[in-house]
């Protein structure tokens, strides 16, 4: 069925799925999993649809779903679509989320959605509930009990141009932006994606721990398999982060063929699985592990490959975002993504790519995110707003047959993001030989005396120092008004506290390493004991939160305010 999706809307696609085929297998505990077939899933979705109908929820009504990751949340989502309603899945509170932050984020997002109904599960914590922003007409509903008999539902008239659902852009909770997507736009994306992946419902099986409230988890690991009738094996992000090894167990046990992961996971998993247990897992069923959502780092993928002995060509890449439903590019699954080396000085000062041989001193390396999917266009814009080509580095703008029309209820944000039908991604990148390379986020870029310095490059260099706990480094630019430019401040965690005794020596070595590798000097190197750097919910260093923590502890570093 590769590339052929003969449906007008997502509900029709679900209705057409073979009833007996397994759809979702949810990991509950090490000795407990639950599987539903497409037929059983449809029944559960109808039960949820019936519950919504009973409460007067119908076509075009926004329905917020606040349920733990799992089959019930997915059924509520599909059930809302069956009614022609517009579901939006939001993050469920978990033990790692600061209650205050969660509450304010939830209040902001729910207020913007102006939902007709908010669906929660039985166990939703009471103390969070007061902060779900409920309008005068919003109904708070408990998800229907899966056991009750699904009633015969009137067939909702879903048009392919109707909004199917709202997904939220990645970002700090509360600042997340809602993206409304039509059935037709989603189906166009899935058609391109299924084709690029050579997706085959008879042999493929997707593994996922990705949250359903982001595009990678929602589109690639729920809507794609639902529409293309492919089984999916999933667990929740909190279960994965606690016991990442369970990912390997599930892939081995269910012979999964496809999975998407953010870059950091390619290092996180090997580092949490002891060497003597790695051989216990059989990952030979995997066709592709797709590195998505951040700049793709070959070193991270190689670490995974070496740890588990998988074939190099299964490590693939993609560039994706909620505003485009999902993928903009996908690497060719038949070979490993291209990797190039470029002159470091030209990259930083002239913002262009001049290819050099592998191993050339001062060279920087990039891994391709693949080629554009059909129906997609891209353009690279310089700081001055000129469209540039030929290996020039600039902001990536996209246009496609699946692009969103704007942020939900936020014309102000839409106006900032769209120019003449092009979407400004805020990512920096370039094209070489018809492939897209993503260099980093525009807002994270450090501009040091007119040179563009990517924090990831500094972090990779510093992480290579033996005293530094690998991966626990944050590089940032702090504006110095005396000098009129940003200066580099690096905070790194040492392997153990004893190393702090020789901090001066380590600092000096790190400084030399940065100058040697990038030709720029760091103003301040701050060494901290293990676990000092603030981590994101998924366990990777959180840039802005760490910056805040550092500047609070060292107000003298911040010379920005003096300028005002």
């Amino acid at each position: 069925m590769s590339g052929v999706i003969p449906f007008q809307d997502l509900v029709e696609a679900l209705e057409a799925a073979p009833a007996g085929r397994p759809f979702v297998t949810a990991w509950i505990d090490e000795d407990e999993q639950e599987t539903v077939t497409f037929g059983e899933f449809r029944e559960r979705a109808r039960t949820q649809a019936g519950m919504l109908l009973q409460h007067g929820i119908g076509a075009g009504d926004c329905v917020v779903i606040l349920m733990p990751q799992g089959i019930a949340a997915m059924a509520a989502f599909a059930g809302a679509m069956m009614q022609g309603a517009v579901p939006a899945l939001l993050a469920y509170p978990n033990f790692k989320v600061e209650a205050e932050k969660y509450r304010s984020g939830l209040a902001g997002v729910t207020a913007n959605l102006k939902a007709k109904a908010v669906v929660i599960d039985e166990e939703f914590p009471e103390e969070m509930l007061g902060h779900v922003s409920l309008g005068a007409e919003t109904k708070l509903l408990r998800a229907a009990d899966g056991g009750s008999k699904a009633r015969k539902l009137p067939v909702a008239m879903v048009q392919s141009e109707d909004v199917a659902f709202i997904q939220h852009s990645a970002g700090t909770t509360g600042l997340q932006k809602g993206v409304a997507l039509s059935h037709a736009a989603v189906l166009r994306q899935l058609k391109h994606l299924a084709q690029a992946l050579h997706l085959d419902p008879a042999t493929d099986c997707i593994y996922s721990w990705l949250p359903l409230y982001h595009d990678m988890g929602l589109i690639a690991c729920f809507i794609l398999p639902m529409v293309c009738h492919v089984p999916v094996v999933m667990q929740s992000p909190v279960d994965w982060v606690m016991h990442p090894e369970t990912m390997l167990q599930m892939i081995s046990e269910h012979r999964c063929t496809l999975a998407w992961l953010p870059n950091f996971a390619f290092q996180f998993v090997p580092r949490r699985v002891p060497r003597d247990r790695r051989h216990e897992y059989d990952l030979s069923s995997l066709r592709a592990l797709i590195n998505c959502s951040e700049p793709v780092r070959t070193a991270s993928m190689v670490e995974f490959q070496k740890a588990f002995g998988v074939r190099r060509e299964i490590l693939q890449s993609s560039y994706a975002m909620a505003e485009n439903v999902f993928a903009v590019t996908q690497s060719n699954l038949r070979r490993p993504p291209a990797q190039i080396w470029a002159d470091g000085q030209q990259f930083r000062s002239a913002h262009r790519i001049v290819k050099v041989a592998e191993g050339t001193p001062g060279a920087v390396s990039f891994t391709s995110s693949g080629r554009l999917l059909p129906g997609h266009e891209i353009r690279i814009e310089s700081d001055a707003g000129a469209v540039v080509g030929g290996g020039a580095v600039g902001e990536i703008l996209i246009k496609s047959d699946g692009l969103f029309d704007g942020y939900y209820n936020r014309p102000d944000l839409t106006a900032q993001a769209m120019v003449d039908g092009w979407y400004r991604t805020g990512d920096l990148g370039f094209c070489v030989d018809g492939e897209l390379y993503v260099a980093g986020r525009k807002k994270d870029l450090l501009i040091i005396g007119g040179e563009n310095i990517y924090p990831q490059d500094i972090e990779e260099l510093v992480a290579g120092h033996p005293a530094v706990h690998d991966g626990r480094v944050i590089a940032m630019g702090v504006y110095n008004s005396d000098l009129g430019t940003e200066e580099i401040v690096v905070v790194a965690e040492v392997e153990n506290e004893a190393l702090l005794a020789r901090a001066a020596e380590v600092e000096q070595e790190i400084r030399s390493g940065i100058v040697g590798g990038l030709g720029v000097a760091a103003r301040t190197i701050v060494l901290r004991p293990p676990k000092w750097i603030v981590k994101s919910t998924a366990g990777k260093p959180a840039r802005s939160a760490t910056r805040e923590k550092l500047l609070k502890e060292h107000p003298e570093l911040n010379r920005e305010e003096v300028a005002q």
Partner: protein
Amino acid sequence: MTTEAQQMIEHIRQLIRKPNVTIDEDTSLVSSGLIDSMALVDLLLKLEDLTHMRIPAGKVQPKDLDSVAKMFATAQRVGKPRK
């Protein structure tokens, strides 16, 4: 106080590196800002270790881990014996 609770307190002391702070079973950890929420993964893994239980992370909220006493009560409530 049980040996396990004492071990947990010792673990927390090492984690926060504040020698002058006294921690007992009822000291509030998260809401007082002693422990940041990112360290909770570590504490939950330690709790699994000390209780020989598997604790479904999805059933735990920050308030359930706010003191050593609450942690062990949470383990009793939602934990499952390990295989």
